[in-house]
């Protein structure tokens, strides 16, 4: 009786019924999520173009990201998505206490995620691994153009096989083996700051979405405490959950694309 009453109480007059209102709310949320995907799509496009043009920068620079911290954050976000899905389920079943606890757990996961992100950002700030012109690495001169020393004469000849013949003339400069290129790993590519620009914009925008999701979920938690939701009316919980899952969805792509470059 009470459920039926509260479901009618939330029905806006321009909807023919509760089902139509629920479906319209969901469709509106999905259209909003589509615009979010297009927003991040621009950044993924920038990532794709930079990486296609400069794979060496991405291979070099991704080592400065901590895979362990990134992995833990992935697990935290996936767990928060799980608690959010359970929260929607609790709301659908009218379990008030469980709904409040699961929403709190989801918000707490958001705090853990942001805390770990803070540790990562702070480390990069101290190391000077920042975007664009702010890129000033502390420990190594990574952005400096690589110096090519003049080719040494004949140091590459095996000393065991000493020959009495006169050493050949130095190869022309164009053919000289540059020491940096001889050992592939030690090449420091130019414009490494490109990677950190992409990294900070993508994770930064994602972080802003995490904060926004936490604010929305806090509002939903407040309304849940006031007893606004029931088995008959849980649409706001469901829609906030959709947003939170999208944030998780984007991180699922950001983690391998930024941290796990091979």
């Amino acid at each position, binding site marked *: 009786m009470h459920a039926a009453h509260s479901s009618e109480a939330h029905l806006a007059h321009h909807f023919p019924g509760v089902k139509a209102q629920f479906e319209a709310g969901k469709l509106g949320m999905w259209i909003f999520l589509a615009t979010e995907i297009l927003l991040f799509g621009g950044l993924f496009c920038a990532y794709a173009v930079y990486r296609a043009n400069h794979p060496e920068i991405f291979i070099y620079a991704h080592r400065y990201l901590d895979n362990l911290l990134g992995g833990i954050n992935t697990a935290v976000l996936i767990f928060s998505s799980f608690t959010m899905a359970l929260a929607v389920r609790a709301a659908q079943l009218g379990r008030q206490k469980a709904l409040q606890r699961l929403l709190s757990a989801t918000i707490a996961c958001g705090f853990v995620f942001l805390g770990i992100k803070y540790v990562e950002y702070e480390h990069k700030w101290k190391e000077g691994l920042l975007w664009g012109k702010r890129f000033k690495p502390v420990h190594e001169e990574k952005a400096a153009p690589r110096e090519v020393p003049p080719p040494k004469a004949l140091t590459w000849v095996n000393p065991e096989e000493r020959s009495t013949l006169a050493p050949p003339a130095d190869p022309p400069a164009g053919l000289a083996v540059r020491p940096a290129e001889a050992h592939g790993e030690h090449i420091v590519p130019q414009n490494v700051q490109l990677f950190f620009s992409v990294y900070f914009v993508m994770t930064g925008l994602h972080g802003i979405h995490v904060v926004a999701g936490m604010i929305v979920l806090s509002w939903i938690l407040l309304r849940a405490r006031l007893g606004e939701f029931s088995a008959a009316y849980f649409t706001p919980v469901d829609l906030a959950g959709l947003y939170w899952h999208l944030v998780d*969805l984007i991180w699922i792509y950001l983690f391998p694309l930024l941290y796990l470059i091979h």
Partner: protein
Amino acid sequence: MAEHESFVHVVPFGVLVRVWAALMVLTVITVAATWVDLGSFNLFLALAIATFKASLVVLYFMHMRYDHPFNAIVFIGSLLFVMLFVVLALLDTQAYQPELIPGYAPGMGK
């Protein structure tokens, strides 16, 4: 209660737990896959696993499997437009970038 039972689908607890477990296992696989050198296939594999994980989240956590199909059209439509955007931008940069500044784009095979 029967009135809203007709359009609200409650995902069973067991399904949600299994989806979560699958997501965690796939995350470990994604990390482990970077320890093996597969050349350019590594990127493809990482994206394939990420897409599979994203599908699990969308289908079960976001209820798309039980939802009105029009929501899926909106969602997949946005993904198609993102793909179109990325593919055209890549084709364009592949066609012009190596000639704009010689040696500037070593990643492009020209």
